[in-house]
């Protein structure tokens, strides 16, 4: 398998490759000290690279083709996942997956955007860009969770809701709006986690909840850096600046008071150690559910209303 290496990951990757090569020679040569040295060096390099990521680099990490997606987390975190399909009106959208699952002993409804790994699966998943039927499926599942008193977890990872003819004909805007409206008054806890890309309304359509979390190397904003660049700078070339200007990383959103918590990623990013990432996420989710479970539904809805009500900066 050829690995996908981002530009700023290259020096790390080169060193790791060298270590691997040296290991092969270890049995015939006495070079274990040198290997240890190099390993320390890699660790140091990783730490310094990942401690100084630019916003654009985080966007790239959020899109890393080897990053765990919704189904990977379902596999790593849950048991007995029962996938449920279709919006009961038109279609089953493959860009959103959802169903009942069990995390330890906690039964939940999990819904998330789903990207593909290669060309074929990406076409099948429409690159994680949902159509209206995807949002309607998600809402159907959320209402099912409400009916049977199960907490809802949504995993956000989309480059945006699909901009197509059929999507407009079938009411992309209405589908997203309806989800915002209904999610704001669901009687069960909702935990939202941005696991990759949180692009605008396409992400928010699954994003109204009681606790909003972001994995450390993800982004969430009103528009992608590329589109922002094309509109405000009238060119695609200013994506780095746009990413800086949009302040779209997890630390940014925590500071803005929009998210509640950052879920730390293993050194080198979630793709570097998916198992550790999944473990951390699992522990975090269980912790959050435990807290939210204690709050009465009316209070929960009231808190949710005020949570989003408090977002915004203005003067009077």
């Amino acid at each position: 398998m050829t690995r996908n290496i981002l530009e700023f990951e290259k020096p790390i990757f080169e060193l790791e490759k060298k270590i691997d090569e040296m290991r092969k020679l270890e049995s015939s040569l006495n070079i274990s000290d040198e290997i240890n040295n190099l390993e320390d060096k890699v660790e140091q390099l990783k730490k310094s690279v990942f401690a100084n990521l630019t916003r654009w680099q985080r966007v790239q990490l959020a899109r890393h083709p080897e990053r765990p997606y919704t189904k990977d987390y379902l596999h790593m975190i849950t048991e007995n996942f029962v996938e449920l399909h279709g919006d009961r009106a038109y279609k089953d959208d493959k860009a959103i997956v959802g169903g009942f699952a069990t995390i330890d002993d906690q039964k939940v409804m999990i819904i998330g955007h789903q990207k593909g790994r290669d060309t074929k699966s990406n076409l099948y998943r429409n690159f994680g860009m949902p159509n209206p039927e995807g949002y309607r499926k998600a809402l159907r599942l959320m209402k099912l969770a409400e009916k049977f008193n199960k907490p809802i977890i949504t995993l956000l990872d989309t480059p945006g809701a699909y901009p197509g003819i059929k999507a407009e004909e079938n009411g992309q805007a209405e589908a997203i709006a309806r989800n915002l409206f209904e999610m704001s008054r669901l009687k069960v806890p909702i935990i939202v986690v941005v696991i990759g890309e949180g692009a605008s309304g396409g992400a928010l359509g699954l994003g109204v909840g009681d606790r909003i979390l972001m994995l450390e190397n993800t982004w969430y904003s009103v528009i992608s850096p590329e589109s922002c660049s094309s509109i405000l700078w009238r060119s695609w070339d200013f994506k780095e600046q746009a990413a800086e200007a949009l302040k779209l990383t997890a630390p940014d959103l925590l500071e803005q008071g929009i998210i509640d918590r950052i879920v730390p990623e293993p050194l080198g990013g979630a793709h570097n150690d998916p198992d550790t990432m999944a473990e951390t996420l699992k522990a975090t989710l269980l912790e959050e559910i435990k807290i939210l479970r204690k709050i009465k539904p009316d209070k929960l809805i009231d808190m949710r209303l005020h949570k989003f009500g408090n977002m915004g900066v203005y003067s009077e």
Partner: protein
Amino acid sequence: MKWFKRSKNNFSTTSIKREVPDGQWIKCDTCNEIIHVKQMEANSFVCEKCGYHFRIGSKEYIDILLDKNSFKELDKKMKSGDPLEFVDTKNYKDRIRDTIKKTGLNDAVATGVGKINGRKVAFACMDFRFIGGSMGSVVGEKIARAIDKAYQQKIPMIIISQSGGARMMEGAFSLMQMAKTSARLARLADAKLPFISILTDPTTGGTTASYAMLGDINIAEPDALIGFAGPRVIKQTIGKDLPKGFQKSEFLLEHGFVDFIVKRTELKQKLDDVLSYLNQDAN
């Protein structure tokens, strides 16, 4: 036969200046009819000849729809902050300041309470002139508070949308206004109070994907562009030309997303008709 040879350029719809020097006459964008300002005002800024709806702002809508002097504006002084210290080709702060100066508006929505044929309503109307009618913190907060007013006073909520979508320069804050306003509308709906959404040209992006599509009744003005993604983006994505009439009011009606299309000249009467049904009276 000299008129026969007249240059075609004279018939161009684009090369002609819209405003005639003394400011009293305006040329219709569609049919080129020259209309006196007073006459146009009297006809709700609709061309009498071809029915073209001129784009108008909150002030004009208030005059057209609400009973004379009934409108009490809320949160008039609310202004945008600059939470991200956003800079593109221009500082957001400067952009806001300049737009306020140019338009005489403080942001892209006016909200308040007023009366429609004696019936009290909470009312919000967007202004496309203010940074493309984009929704940032101020638009979201003012609309949320107007909905609260409707909720507290148990009166209907009416929102006129006219917007390119969420405002980029406030990043995630703008995005969250969609959730903020939709949540307030859900509470209003739980209290069984009516919400009427009026969609005018253009209503796209995050505005459509939140309150504009959530009316008990969705009403569109004729020939308005209404959609989620803008036509340019869709064309770019699919690499094909878009069908004629795509994302226009008539298209939305055909696909089931607006209840009806109404001419601006008949809008007030139609609102009155609809509102007369949207209450808990047994008769």
